[in-house]
């Protein structure tokens, strides 16, 4: 049970996402989770051991470390990634619920049901419209909120995104103001800036996806209002082709991700 399991869970949602959603998922797994696991964890691995204070007073180092790092960067990022990935589950649950309903209809022998067998229902890709549109849009909204909250928490807790080399500490039991030195400050600053940059890119992708969905929604409404007797089948075929192309692109990306993730 690790990040790979999260990848399996979210991989299912990928099929029903828009193209921007698929890009977001790829950025999340390659530039955030993978970087966290293979690089960032090692940089912060020895953070308390190599946090040195210029005093022999026992306990001073512990107390100063706790004062300056109430929650480690690496843990905050892990929590951020978990919270940001979770809204996609809402979409997964909605899709599962719809599939369940279709299976029920199919088993009842409903004549409205156009599927030949259960396998077709399982493999079917749902269009983002109706209630699924609302679920999907809410999930993007929550993602944005979580990203923003965690970025703000980061900024607030660490007074910016720079890791200083030296911190001055006078918490008890340190006898007076003591110099404490952080291990690998430059490397930590580089990774912090990188993670913040990728978070910002993810926020931009989410905003773009939200705008795209809203634009599509309003266009569809105005088209329905202007032309109530339009032919849905023709639109369906075009969109299905586009979706298939998107799936091919995303599947090739996913294969690359699977190759990297453990």
């Amino acid at each position: 049970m690790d990040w790979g399991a999260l990848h399996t869970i979210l991989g299912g949602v990928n099929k029903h996402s828009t193209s921007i959603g698929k890009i977001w998922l790829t950025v999340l797994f390659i530039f955030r989770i993978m970087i966290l696991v293979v690089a960032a964890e090692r940089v912060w691995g020895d953070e308390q051991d190599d946090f040195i204070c210029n005093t022999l007073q026992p306990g001073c180092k512990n107390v100063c470390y706790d004062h300056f790092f109430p929650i480690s960067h690496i843990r905050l990022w892990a929590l951020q990634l978990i919270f940001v990935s979770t809204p996609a589950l809402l979409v997964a649950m909605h899709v599962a619920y719809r599939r369940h309903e279709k299976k029920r209809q199919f088993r009842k022998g409903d004549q409205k049901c156009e599927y030949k067998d259960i396998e077709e229902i399982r493999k079917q890709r749902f269009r983002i419209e109706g209630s699924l549109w609302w679920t999907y849009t809410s999930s993007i909204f929550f993602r944005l909120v979580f990203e923003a909250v965690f970025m703000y928490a980061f900024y607030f807790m660490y007074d910016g995104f720079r890791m200083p080399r030296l911190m001055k500490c006078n918490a008890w039991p340190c006898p007076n103001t003591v110099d404490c030195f952080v291990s690998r400050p430059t490397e930590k600053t580089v990774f912090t800036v990188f993670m913040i940059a990728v978070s910002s890119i993810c926020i931009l992708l989410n905003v773009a996806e939200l705008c795209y969905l809203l634009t599509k929604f309003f266009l569809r409404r105005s088209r329905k209002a202007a032309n109530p007797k339009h032919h849905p089948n023709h639109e369906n075929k075009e969109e299905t082709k586009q979706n298939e192309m998107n799936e091919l692109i995303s599947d090739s990306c996913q294969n690359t991700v699977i190759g990297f993730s453990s």
Partner: protein
Amino acid sequence: MSWGFLRDLLSGVNKYSTGIGRIWIAVVFIFRLLVYIVAAENIWKYEHDEFECNIKQPGCENVCFDHFFPVSHIRLWALQLIMVSTPSLLVVFHVAYRENREKHHNQKLYKSPGEIDGGLLYTYLISLILKTGFEIVFLVLFYKLYNGFKVPRLVKCDIRPCPNTVDCYISKPTEKMIFLYFLVTTSCLCIVLNLSELSYLIFKYSIKCYLKRVIKNRQGSKSDCHKSEIISHNRPAAAGAVPKQLPVLASEHTR
């Protein structure tokens, strides 16, 4: 053998759960198990090495650490996760028993072995009660062992061989406290989900029972709504009679 085993176990239970049960499984996977493995384990990894006492007396640190942490937070957390996931096995065993019984008798005894009715309903309810019970027991244990969910920076220790009252400093107390509160919040959320599922199931099946009785009273025949829906191929007349008497409820059982 690792947490992947627990994950596979819970995935197996997912098939026989209600909607709320599936949300519970998702919360346990993502907000408890995943957080434990990727974040919490590393915080408590070197807790003994980083526990420092203001004394050079050999053995004093060991004794004080043992006194203040009889069972480490992280071990209690792991035990809680295991104990809370295990009652779901009862449901899996019961479904396996039903399937075996059908195989043994070589006939369809149940509408669907995985459907929550009759004996399986009681097993499911018992598993929910046990899950909730374990959650509450562990929360109380945490509270009693550590005098609340706070982790102090400094603890004073005067156990032999420490020569007098000695200051001992715990490492990363704030981070540990944040994750403990996270644990408590997710436990409480799981308790709420379990209780809602319990109420939902009891309510749903009471209504079903009540409606069955009302319909059968009107038809003038007796019913026993504690037996599960048993269909036998040897008695097609009886099976055929059931849908006529219960037109409303029959549709609920098809999946």
